[in-house]
């Protein structure tokens, strides 16, 4: 007798039920939604980077080009995108800073240093760099 390719269902070879994963799996649980938002935030980080590059290009184009760029920034669409981008960039930064202790184990004299001590320097650097940038911008204004 020829053996069937896949074993058929018999009393002793039960048929398994294989659940399908819904396309909307990430909506069911807040942690999954947070993860998807964290991944999505990369798009807005990219938008912020492109905006900065465009700003630099406008700056190189001289005062007139820069004034035109500034004018374009004031349209409602760009303002909306910028506000959303700001939210996601902050979200991106905080979520990834909080995850650094997971990926890094630092040992000092044989002992694993506490998680907050790994996350803290990231936040400190963030504050210092933000402060330095604001100082530069405000001084030239």
């Amino acid at each position, binding site marked *: 007798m020829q053996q069937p390719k896949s074993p058929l269902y018999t*009393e002793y070879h*039960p048929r*398994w039920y294989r659940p399908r994963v819904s396309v909307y799996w990430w909506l069911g649980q807040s942690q999954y939604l947070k993860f998807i938002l964290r991944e999505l935030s990369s798009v807005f980080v990219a938008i912020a980077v492109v905006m900065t590059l465009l700003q630099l290009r406008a700056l190189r184009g001289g005062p007139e080009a820069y004034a035109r760029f500034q004018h374009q920034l004031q349209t409602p669409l760009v303002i909306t995108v910028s506000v959303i981008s700001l939210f996601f960039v902050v979200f991106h930064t905080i979520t990834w800073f909080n*995850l650094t202790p997971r*990926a890094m*184990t630092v040992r000092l004299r044989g002992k694993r240093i506490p998680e907050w001590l790994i996350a803290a320097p990231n936040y400190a650097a963030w504050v210092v760099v933000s402060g330095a940038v604001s100082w530069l911008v405000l001084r030239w204004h």
Partner: protein
Amino acid sequence: MADTIILEIARYSPERDAEPGFQRFEVPVHKEWVILDALNHVKDKIDGSLTYRWSCRMGICGSCGIMVNGEPKLSCATFLSSYAHNGNVVRVEPLRYFPIVRDLVTELSDFLGKLKKVKPWLIPKEELSLSDGEFLQTPEQLEDYKQFSMCINCTLCYAACPVVGLDPKFVGPAAIALAQRYNKDSRDRGTQERTAILAHPDGIWGCTFVGECTRVCPKHVDPAGAIQQYKIKAALDWVKGLLMPWGDKKREEDRNAAA
């Protein structure tokens, strides 16, 4: 705390059903009862056909994993009283993403195959005889891998990981954490062999760092941490190979020695 609580249990009989359905059972709530006690009560007193796995009832055998209200839990370590508020219904389902054999029993052969693939055993540099004495290990060396050795293969992390659900080839959190358990052991020389298997899109690079595996782990193994640390190591090895190609020869020798 309510006197009784409704358990809504997923039922699936391969002989009878095309897909799982739910059946409700009213069970008493005792302060010291865990969900497993309630399941045992249903099986003893109400419906003897209810099928589920359990063994040690003390959080060490790893066989009683189920979904409780959508969260992967060990049924022996989840108190019924924490769900027992008036009118509450507790939904009990088999672990997510696994094929279902019957009721709450899932099929584990896929997981066991993946586990075996990562060689979760000590691969010493050379076979030593008993007369060579013991392998000495300092407390620091033990500390390096101890956390990952606490895994009980309960597969709650698989039920928590959306990548497992979306990509059936993904090796998964527990298997990678157990690979790290042996990689980090000072007695082991099998890292190269395991990395050859795990530095792959179905291995560590499949992980998107959702972090849920670590959150649901009943033994605080931190598989997400293990995978990210593994990624860093694999990336550094790759850079080293790029900057110091002559090191490849030594790595090759190590690999051959390990094999």
